[in-house]
């Protein structure tokens, strides 16, 4: 019973952070800040839910499920870092310049890109 309460807590936390990320992705005003909100989905929106599922699997002596679930969660988190970095740089070089940047030192140092 206590395990079930812990699992519910983890699932609620994961759902909350995923919801916050989706709301940010819909509300933010420009491309790069939307990208920041999507990091919210890819880290805690995944990790808490995956941890809850893994605890459920381990509590039922289902170790194959638990280890595989944890591995997929870690894989998603690690690859989302690389994807976010790549698409920010790609978008900047493609010519996306949000108008509300208060300081842009990349433009100052590389003015002709």
């Amino acid at each position: 019973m206590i395990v079930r309460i812990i699992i519910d807590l983890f699932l609620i936390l994961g759902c909350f952070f995923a919801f916050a990320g989706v709301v940010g992705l819909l509300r933010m005003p420009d491309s790069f800040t939307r990208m920041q909100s999507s990091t919210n989905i890819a880290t805690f929106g995944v990790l808490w839910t995956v941890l809850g599922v893994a605890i459920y699997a381990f509590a039922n002596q289902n170790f194959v499920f638990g280890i595989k679930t944890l591995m997929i969660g870690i894989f998603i988190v690690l690859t989302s870092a690389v994807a976010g970095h790549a698409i920010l740089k790609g978008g900047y070089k493609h010519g996306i310049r949000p108008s509300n940047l208060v300081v842009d030192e990349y433009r100052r140092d590389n003015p002709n890109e």
Partner: protein
Amino acid sequence: MKNKSAAVFATFILCYLVWILFTLTFTAQELIVGAIVSLLVALFTANYFIHEDAFYLLKPNVLINFIIYVLFIFPVELWKANVDVAKRALSPKLPINPGIVKVPVDLKSEYGLAMLANSITLTPGTITMDIVEENGQNFYYIHWIDVASKNSKEAGDMIKGRLENWIRRIWK
């Protein structure tokens, strides 16, 4: 020559470990196919994957620092940044102040630079954009959702926080 075979061996061990953790069926055919595929992948990618000492991460004090960093130091920073960005997204006034700042970083090793850059990208609110080297000093360009300081030294202290000191204990 010895260096290259050590690099291939380390990559093979890593690939085989990942294969076993993803399949988790210990029959003979799965293990043999996994060994062959891991060996092929290791032969082709070891040159890109390992540039320095192949078994550096297995030294005891480095390994202990690495585990402490992954399990305790980084999740605390991740929690703080996640709550901060979730508050910003859900609050009605949308308090954002974005900008791209240039931040100095005092790491020399390639793996250390990549690890710090990925840690900064994973914490919501900051995304690393590029790494440049000028006169022996490395710089990051970071997109920051709330520019609190335009001075690059102060901004670096606020963004990196405790992460850089811990990574300097792992990679020189």
